[in-house]
């Protein structure tokens, strides 16, 4: 069942010819049996388009790499499948001291993939390595920046002392590595973790092979403390061409694909062997409004339009955007209207303004706000600023974000209706990141993938990061900063929740940015081969791109009988395309023939 029906039919027909051209064709399309895959092993393949930087958990920063890292190395505490709240990982229990500065973790009885026991000493070794070695701090330095000391008092007890109370402690996501392997690594910076296989780990899978730029192979970890996963081999296959990845899924070259476009997603719905998942995700899209705030040292930077300092104008802009149209026309239903920077997949932290505050699409209100603030319309209908200049705002869009490019067209129109001119600046991601860094923009499309702890997203809006690579919108507000410090030290989750929501309320009231949409992850998998994926959040969440290993860990291979019951694939589209191409080739051949006739005639004349 690794090929579509048309593949079978025509494939057999051309088999004779194909044998001359390419090997591995009996039966047509069946992939050669890969190494590290004994008879009867179940392999699940994931197509990914993003790059892997390195598989060294200390230095890997790209999304796919950290995703694979979660499968290889367990954390002390993991993010629950339900709501991403902390739950036991390698630590089976924990407590914090009265002064909230000392944390004691009890490490569970478990084994590394090579059979050695996992102890608190391994954890202490990992943390101390990050704290003492600059290179080791590349990926997770932030998590330990506030740690005073980490010690293993015995094999089962780990004690972490922090400089100040740290609420994000349980969401720190630091991969714990085996000391007996990593103590021998002399140069963490240069180490790739692909020097020797299998790479000893504690997660559900163990790294057993890596072909840079092509594929990454992991095998089930027999010693995983929750029990061995049902999938024997898990492979990541790199696709440079997103459509080819989807075609690979249709054919059965891969079993899961993600980051699909709406068109791909809709097309796959009709395929009986494939199940699509429109998963609620942790990403959002926003338009930042350059407030032209100075850097912490007082330096003024950038060339943002000063009218954007006016809260009334920012509110008016928000009222002028018809999010429903963007959801419908641009996102094609695969997103939901957003309010603030923590998406609702984190029910504890997300913020929903009450109805009186909620800014809805209301051009009349927008106009009223602008009139009230004194931006009168000029002769051509464009409003003028306090100096009498017509207001024209630049909207920075990154050219490879197709949806934003589309949304920008609508926004230009809507802002035009309230008398605000818009120039859409479409730039490469490099250029647009330079402009945002330098503050050389008025409004900019951007977006973030939010982690399980709100801390880092909230930190991006504080005054001290204004004008650095870290700032999201160059927002700066004293009350917000005070609350930020307070929530970081608040270990009571309920109390912290209130603080975090109040902070977002400040952002919302001040319109630090117009948060447009929470974007779903569009995924599809071969349901004739695998089922039972645990989503995160459990209610309508995602399989890939989780804050955890739940999706891959829970995958259940479909037995041959079950697969036979599943519907046959539908390859209408392929038939269409192949048909279209065949027709075209025929047409081209006719043209070629005509041209050749003419050429021939000409050649004869030249003789």
């Amino acid at each position, binding site marked *: 069942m690794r090929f579509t029906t048309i593949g079978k039919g025509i494939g057999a027909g051309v088999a004779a010819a194909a044998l001359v051209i390419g090997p591995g064709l009996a039966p047509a399309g069946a992939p050669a049996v890969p190494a590290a895959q004994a008879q009867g092993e179940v392999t699940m393949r994931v197509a990914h388009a993003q790059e892997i930087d390195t598989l060294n958990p200390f230095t890997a920063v790209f999304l796919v790499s950290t995703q694979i890292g979660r499968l290889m190395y367990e954390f002390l505490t993991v993010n629950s499948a339900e709501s991403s709240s902390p739950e036991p990982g390698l630590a089976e229990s924990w407590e914090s001291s009265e002064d909230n500065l000392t944390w004691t973790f009890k490490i569970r009885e478990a084994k590394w993939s090579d059979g050695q026991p996992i102890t608190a000493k391994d954890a202490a070794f990992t943390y101390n390595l990050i704290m003492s070695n600059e290179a080791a701090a590349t990926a997770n330095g932030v998590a330990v920046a506030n740690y005073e000391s980490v010690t293993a008092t015995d094999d089962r007890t780990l004690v972490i002392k922090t400089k100040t109370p740290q609420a994000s402690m349980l969401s720190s996501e630091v991969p714990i590595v085996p000391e007996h392997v990593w103590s021998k690594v002399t140069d963490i910076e240069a180490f790739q973790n692909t020097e020797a296989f299998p790479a000893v780990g504690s997660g559900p899978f163990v790294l057993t092979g890596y072909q840079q730029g092509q594929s990454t192979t992991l095998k089930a970890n027999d010693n995983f403390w929750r029990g061995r996963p049902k999938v024997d081999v898990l492979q990541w296959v790199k696709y440079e061409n*997103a459509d080819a990845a989807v075609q690979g899924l249709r054919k059965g070259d891969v079993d899961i694909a993600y980051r699909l476009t709406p*068109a*791909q997603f809709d097309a796959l719905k009709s395929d009986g062997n494939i199940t699509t998942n429109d998963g609620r995700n942790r990403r959002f899209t926003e338009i930042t409004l350059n407030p032209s705030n100075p850097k912490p040292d007082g330096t003024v930077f950038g060339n943002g339009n000063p009218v954007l300092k006016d809260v009334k104008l920012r509110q008016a802009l928000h009222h002028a955007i018809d999010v429903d149209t963007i959801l419908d026309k641009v996102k094609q239903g695969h997103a939901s209207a957003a309010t603030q920077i923590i998406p609702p997949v984190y029910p504890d932290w997300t913020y929903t303004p009450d109805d009186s505050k909620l800014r809805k699409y209301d051009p009349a209100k927008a106009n009223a706000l602008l009139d009230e603030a004194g931006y009168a319309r000029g002769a051509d209908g464009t409003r003028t600023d306090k100096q009498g200049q017509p207001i024209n705002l630049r909207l920075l869009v990154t050219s490879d974000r197709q949806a934003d490019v589309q949304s920008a*067209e609508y926004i230009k129109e809507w802002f035009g209706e309230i008398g605000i001119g818009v120039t859409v600046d*479409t730039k*490469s991601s490099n250029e647009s990141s330079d402009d945002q860094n330098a503050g050389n923009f008025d409004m900019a499309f951007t977006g973030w993938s939010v982690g399980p702890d709100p801390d880092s997203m909230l930190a991006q809006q504080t005054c001290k990061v204004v004008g650095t690579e870290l700032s999201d919108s160059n927002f700066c507000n004293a009350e917000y900063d005070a609350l930020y410090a307070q929530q970081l030290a608040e270990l009571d989750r309920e109390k912290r929740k209130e603080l975090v929501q109040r902070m977002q309320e400040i952002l919302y009231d001040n319109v630090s940015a117009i948060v447009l949409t929470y974007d779903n992850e569009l995924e599809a998998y071969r349901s004739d081969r695998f089922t039972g994926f645990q989503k995160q959040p459990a209610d309508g969440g995602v399989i890939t791109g989780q804050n955890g290993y739940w999706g891959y860990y829970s995958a259940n291979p479909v037995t041959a009988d079950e697969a036979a019951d599943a519907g046959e694939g539908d390859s209408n589209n392929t038939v269409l*395309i192949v048909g*279209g*191409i065949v027709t075209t080739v025929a047409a081209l051949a006719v043209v070629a023939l005509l041209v050749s006739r003419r050429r021939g005639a000409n050649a004869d004349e030249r003789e």
Partner: protein
Amino acid sequence: MTTTGSIVWARRRAALGASWKLFAANRSGLVGLGMLGVVLVLALLAPLLVPADSLSVTRSTGGVLEPPSGEFWLGTDENGRSVLALTWYGARVSLLVGIAAALLSVGIGTVVGMLAAHFRGWGSALLLRVTDFFLVLPSLVLAIVLSTVLARGLWTIVLAIGVTSWPSTARLVRAQTLTIEARPYIERAHVLGGGHAHILLRHVLPAVFPLVLANTTLTVGSAIISESTLAFLGLGAPGTVSWGGMLKAALDTGAVTAGAWWYLLPPGLAIVVVVLGFTLAGRALETVLNPNLRSRR
């Protein structure tokens, strides 16, 4: 002076007429020229025949990736716009970029080639060295970098293609100039006190012009392919409709998976038609003009 000038011009006009006769006898060249003529006319008439609104994302009337129908002969794109209208308008940008980049490339190449051949000494050596240097640079990489360094736009792409593709023209023109300057009449002009500018503009340039013309025609086709390649790699000019940009958008939105052949084939075929047209016409020009060059040698 005026009389000799007019005689020269009359002679040139006669030569041109003869060349055209030869060209007209070359049927594949005529086919190419015909293809180009049709595309050019269509491209020029686009604003008159195709409503400008059909390019607007916000005012589009069709559904997402609709197959061809009575209303949309070639279906619609991911924004519900007519693919026919897009392909039609796309001809403008593709032709403009192709022709401008070819002119730039051949222009630089001709100037460098003529100067390198005409002058001796370190200046010429330097020009040759620069030419050799550009010849060894991976031109696609250089074009990609150039198009990211400069602000996004059509002229950036023209520049990126033009600046990376001139060295082969420079070498050709240099070789031709060397041949021409070896002829006695150039020496005579020297002796009669003709300056460098006089010799280069009055004697060398007209003599290398046929070669340059044929070269330009061939280069346009390649430049159009280059434009589509850059667009495919995500370096196209934003906000404009070009064939390469359409193909890029088709891929980005998953047209292949959706089976949207009507979105994938028209821009690609349009490129093939235009490039083939320029190639056929260019080759015909070469065969027509080359015997002239040889007979004068």
